[in-house]
């Protein structure tokens, strides 16, 4: 019983020892905050990545794709129909984007041109949630160009005043179609806008109704480029700059036609089939089954990958970053452990005579060891508990803290324009918190083992005579 009484009294009276666990407390709080923010970031990033890609992507090794994609869809349905919710054929290819500016100049960007059927693509993944209009309002994905846009074009205005039997009518109609092509394109938000430093909003260089030009490779033995014009009808804003600054969505049939891979009426090649599995289904298992089924049809031609596999390097980089940060922060707690060791050693020296008296009164070596181990445990529980509460409070009020720092310093700590998040995303995983707290307690208790052992080995007579 004396162990607990003395441990409690030491805890109440030895403030220097409490000071030693402040570093443990700060380490625990930092680890909880860092892990919560990183989990928030990576969780949001995963959601967005997953939203852009379907659960499983079946693609051909050849960029020109395959014509029998309806059969491939049938194979997928036949083999995993009970586990697959939807499929969508797409054509993905590299390209160059030309944005025509009002001053007559043009901006050229390297892009990924993706041919889709909006209704099908909306069923696979959260693609439709990322499509918005110029004001930022979500809109249904569609490539339809409103007739009014052509009417309001310079040629359109003239056309309205020109009788149908006028020889100019046909020329003006052609010019109106050229000025506002009837083929819509959904442009990545970062492609369509520029952000001027010091401003809070983005300026559109390719607003709704703007004409853009695309160049992409044609199919065939010789590498040749195809050119096509589109009208911007919407913007794709996922929050992932990698996609928002690269993706241009165009009608699948038009892309097939222009690449000389289709007749423009739906009969053509695709190089990807997006597969959405039903909720609760293990997509890795489905991906393996699809791969086996397609390999039996055309060995080595199709590559089937889950969205996680496709984003492997990025997700792995985030995981490694989080792991390294945790290791570094744990090292900080380990350093704090050495502080505890030093202070405990000092306390053992200070308490040498008391230890001798305790032994004279019949305390065993184990009992004396127990005093200092329970003291170490109590200190670490106090430190880690306080650190956990502090960490959780910081996470809970993180955005308020950020706003307060912003108003105090006049600078943005967390710039939503960079991350596309309106607030700092956080996610508290109870297991991570438990792991951090238990790990820190273990380090702190381990640091008290050596001083406790030293105390227990003190000879009672030498301890009593200690000056």
């Amino acid at each position, binding site marked *: *019983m*004396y162990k607990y*009484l*003395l441990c409690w009294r030491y805890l109440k009276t030895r403030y220097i020892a409490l000071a030693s666990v402040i570093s443990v407390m700060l380490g625990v709080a930092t680890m909880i905050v860092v892990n919560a923010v990183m989990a928030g970031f990576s969780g949001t990033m995963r959601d967005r990545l997953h939203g852009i890609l379907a659960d499983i992507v079946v693609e051909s090794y050849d960029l020109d794709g395959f014509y029998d994609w309806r059969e491939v869809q049938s194979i997928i349905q036949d083999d995993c129909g009970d586990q697959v919710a939807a499929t969508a054929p797409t054509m993905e290819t590299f390209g160059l984007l030309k944005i025509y500016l009002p001053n007559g100049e043009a901006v050229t960007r390297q892009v990924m041109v993706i041919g889709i059927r909006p209704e099908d693509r909306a069923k696979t993944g959260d693609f439709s949630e990322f499509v918005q209009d110029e004001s930022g309002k979500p809109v249904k994905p569609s490539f339809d160009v409103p007739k009014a846009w052509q009417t309001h074009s310079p040629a359109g205005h003239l056309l309205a005043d020109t009788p149908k039997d006028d020889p100019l009518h046909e020329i003006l109609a052609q010019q109106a179609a050229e000025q506002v092509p009837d083929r819509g394109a959904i442009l990545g938000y970062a492609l369509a806008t520029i952000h001027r430093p010091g401003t809070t909003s983005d300026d559109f260089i390719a607003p709704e109704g703007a004409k853009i030009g695309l160049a992409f490779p044609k199919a065939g033995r010789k590498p040749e480029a195809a050119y096509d014009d589109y009208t911007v009808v919407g913007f794709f804003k996922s929050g992932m700059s990698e996609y928002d600054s690269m993706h241009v969505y165009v009608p699948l049939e038009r892309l097939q036609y222009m690449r000389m891979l289709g007749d423009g009426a739906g009969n053509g090649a695709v190089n990807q089939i997006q597969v959405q599995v039903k909720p609760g289904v293990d997509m890795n298992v489905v991906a393996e089954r699809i791969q086996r089924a397609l390999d039996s049809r055309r060995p080595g031609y199709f590559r089937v990958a889950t969205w996680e596999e496709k984003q492997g390097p990025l997700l792995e980089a985030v995981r490694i970053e989080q792991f390294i940060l945790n290791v570094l922060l744990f090292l900080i707690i380990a350093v704090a452990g050495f502080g505890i060791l030093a202070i405990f050693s000092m306390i053992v020296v200070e308490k040498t*005579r*008391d230890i001798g008296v305790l032994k004279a*009164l*019949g305390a065993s070596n184990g009992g004396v060891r127990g005093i200092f181990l329970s003291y170490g445990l109590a200190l670490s529980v106090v430190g880690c508990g306080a650190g956990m509460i502090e960490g959780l409070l910081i996470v809970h009020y993180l955005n308020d803290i950020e706003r307060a720092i912003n108003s105090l310093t006049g600078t943005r700590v967390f710039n939503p324009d960079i991350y596309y998040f309106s607030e700092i995303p956080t996610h508290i995983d109870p297991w991570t918190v438990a792991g951090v707290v238990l790990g820190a307690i273990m380090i702190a208790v381990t640091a008290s083992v050596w001083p406790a052992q030293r105390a227990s080995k003190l000879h009672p007579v030498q301890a009593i005579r200690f000056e």
Partner: protein
Amino acid sequence: MIFPFPSKDRHVSTLHLHAVGLKKTYRKGRSLEVPVLHGVDFSVSQGEMVAIVGASGSGKSTLLHLLGLLDSPDSGHIYLRGERIDHLPDRKRDHLRNEAFGFVFQSYHLMPELTALENVLMPHLIRLSPWGWFSRKKELKKEAAAWLDRVGLGHRAKHKPSELSGGEMQRAAIARALAGNPQMILADEPTGNLDAETGASVMRLLRDLNRERGLTMMVVTHDLNVARQADRIVRLNHGLVETYVPGLAA
């Protein structure tokens, strides 16, 4: 004449603790050896109060530590009520120190974090498990308070050692030594840090307790006035029991 064994005193009859041929050498480093006891024979009877006197370095405290199992002799044997105890394993030695012996030290050695009452309770706190303690807490606290009353510190029960005078601390230490209901009190210079008047009152207290309760007591001292209050005086000189001075009891 060397005569370390008890006389046929009025209330001294059975051997309580005796030691035969105790030798102890302290070693400092690899080469330096300081022989302290050279084969001491010693005994004390039930209810006897023995004073051990001698010059500094004569081995008085070492003898007390060996008899109280705080240290082990290099050779020789120690018997408690006829049972050999010097060779016991640590666990049993801890037990005996807690239950059979009560120690009083020159520098009191009270726990500074605990109150006088808690210090007095320490032998029980060491002896009992948390469950045992909580089931007997009331009774033991009452008993400890009674011991504090007995040594004249009833009004100081909740005071920390830093709030007590030297004499009061020594009285609290005596109460602590008695609280565990030991068979024997081993006091090492109990008046060494006290002025003459306070020292005398502490010795009177020890003597009264010896008489009231028939407690066996060994008091190490270099003060002959203190030693005179014992039933018997044993003088140590250069690690040997040199003189036995009977009949000097107060």
